[in-house]
């Protein structure tokens, strides 16, 4: 208990300096680093593509992704692992096991949060519900109202995770299901406007929950050149504020690097998506400092 007392004394002393000593520059808290790793549209690609594959030979594979993630976690324990949906459908593993293996492996890789893609309804909403016990991670979706479905209460609009004292709010968005997914599959799931939903979410996460970092896991799609009216990550980014990162999916967009977008307030934020089939892993590092006198400094984004 001696050590604890010492810590408390030290903290109390620091607080006094912090509260009263505006002119003191000796207050130099260390930088905190949060690493966000992400995948999207893995589509049941558990094994790597074979050597004879015409497009992606020897790429991907969960066992290799696992070793990469482990080494990144070793480097920074304050790491989050997220997925932006369409976990299901694409190889016979899904046809045979209905998503069980996908969820079990994601649990072994210690995924934190995922959102729901349109193909995650491919065995119907009951099929998704039936696999939930295999997922030791959470699903978030803020614009699918599951009240009248079996997923009611099993999918939350957002999740808050605290890493190294940094409060991270993560909310999910799904694509419009009508015309894309058979109604027999998604049943009474109600799709809500993603922009309005995001405004609500950021209000909750920023104003009420006071999150330091807000991440949107989106399965809306990156951008629709031929249908500019459709909700997309780029449109959402420009129409909202307080979102630091949109992790996208659905359009299987391979980007050379994350896209910097100006949000509603003219502040820079990031939109990223890493193609599909587990070929790439996205890695975004957020560096925080506790400097009180940095009000003039913005955030530098390096991609």
């Amino acid at each position: 208990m001696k050590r604890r007392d010492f810590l408390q004394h030290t903290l109390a002393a620091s607080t006094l300096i912090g509260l009263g000593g505006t002119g003191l520059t000796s207050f130099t808290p260390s930088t905190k680093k949060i690493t966000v790793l992400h995948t999207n549209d893995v589509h049941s690609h558990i094994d790597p593509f074979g050597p004879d594959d015409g497009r992606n030979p020897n790429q991907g594979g969960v066992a290799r992704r696992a070793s990469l993630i482990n080494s990144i976690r070793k480097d920074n324990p304050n790491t989050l692992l997220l997925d932006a949906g369409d976990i299901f459908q694409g190889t016979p593993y899904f046809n045979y096991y209905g998503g069980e293996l996908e969820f079990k492996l994601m649990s072994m890789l210690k995924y934190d949060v995922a959102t729901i893609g349109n193909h995650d309804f491919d065995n119907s909403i009951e099929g998704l519900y039936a696999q939930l016990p295999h997922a030791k991670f959470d699903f978030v979706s803020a614009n699918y109202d599951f009240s009248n479905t079996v997923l009611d209460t099993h999918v939350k609009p957002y999740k808050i995770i605290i890493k190294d004292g940094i409060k991270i709010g993560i909310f999910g968005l799904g694509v419009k299901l009508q015309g894309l997914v058979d109604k027999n599959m998604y049943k009474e799931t109600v799709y809500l406007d993603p922009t309005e939903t995001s405004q609500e979410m950021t209000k909750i996460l920023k104003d009420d929950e006071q999150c330091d970092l807000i991440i949107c896991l989106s399965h809306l799609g990156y951008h629709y050149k031929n249908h500019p009216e459709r909700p997309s990550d780029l449109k959402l980014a420009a129409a909202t504020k307080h979102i630091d990162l949109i992790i996208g999916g659905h359009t299987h967009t391979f980007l050379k690097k994350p896209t910097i977008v100006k949000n509603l307030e003219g502040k820079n934020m990031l939109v990223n998506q890493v193609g599909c089939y587990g070929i790439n892993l996205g890695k975004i590092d957020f560096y925080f400092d506790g400097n009180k006198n940095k009000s003039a400094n913005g955030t530098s984004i390096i991609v």
Partner: protein
Amino acid sequence: MNYKQVCLIIVLTFCVACKTDVHLNKVEGKQINISDSLAIDTNIEDFIKPYRDNVNKNLDSVLAYAVDTYSKRDGNYNTAIGNMMADAVFEQANPVFKNRTGKNIDFVLLNHGGIRAIISKGKVTTRTAYEVMPFENSVVVVTLKGTQVKELIDYLVADKRAHPISKLKVVLDSNEQLKSAELDGKPIDFNATYNVATNDYLYNGGDSMNFFKTNDSLYVLDYKIRNVLIDYFTKIDTLNPVRDDRFIQLNN
């Protein structure tokens, strides 16, 4: 308030102060390719192995033998592989439909684009069925009015692709115009109604087959096209489909 409580309050105050003070200073983003230069996590690999072995064992089990290699590119208007698929849908789905409704399927229409792979000469496996039909589409039977069947025939005539059909016979003249459309050797009665088997993708307007939508009745059989193929391959020993005269153009 004792000393510890005071300390706690101070600590809490400090934390709140900290919270509002943290500043996002810098963001660095990149993507990392999952290439074969990365190590394989043996723990994960060992976990996958029994699943993989089971899937492969099932997928590679031999269901039939193909006497030749069949591709959807082999022929105009009708192909051996397409004929096989449409015939298999009729053969497998009609008993289910008849059992439920007491009625027969009159004819089958699938789409040429829905044949996703060739069938190679030799062993036909479950994997073959997954390659030819990776999607989860299922058989539906739609009751169409004669006028819609006319639209369907017009679609086939205009599209000139080897969309798989079964039981239906369509003949074009040398100018690619409709000469005859028959079922069971009799001309189609455009005042009658017909039960047409297709898949839910086409029923929902896939490949612009919009004639399916305002139908009298829809029967969902919950029978996946891939399972139709697997069941059909299991039933037969030798796969030996042929091109025939079900959809042809006359030379003169």
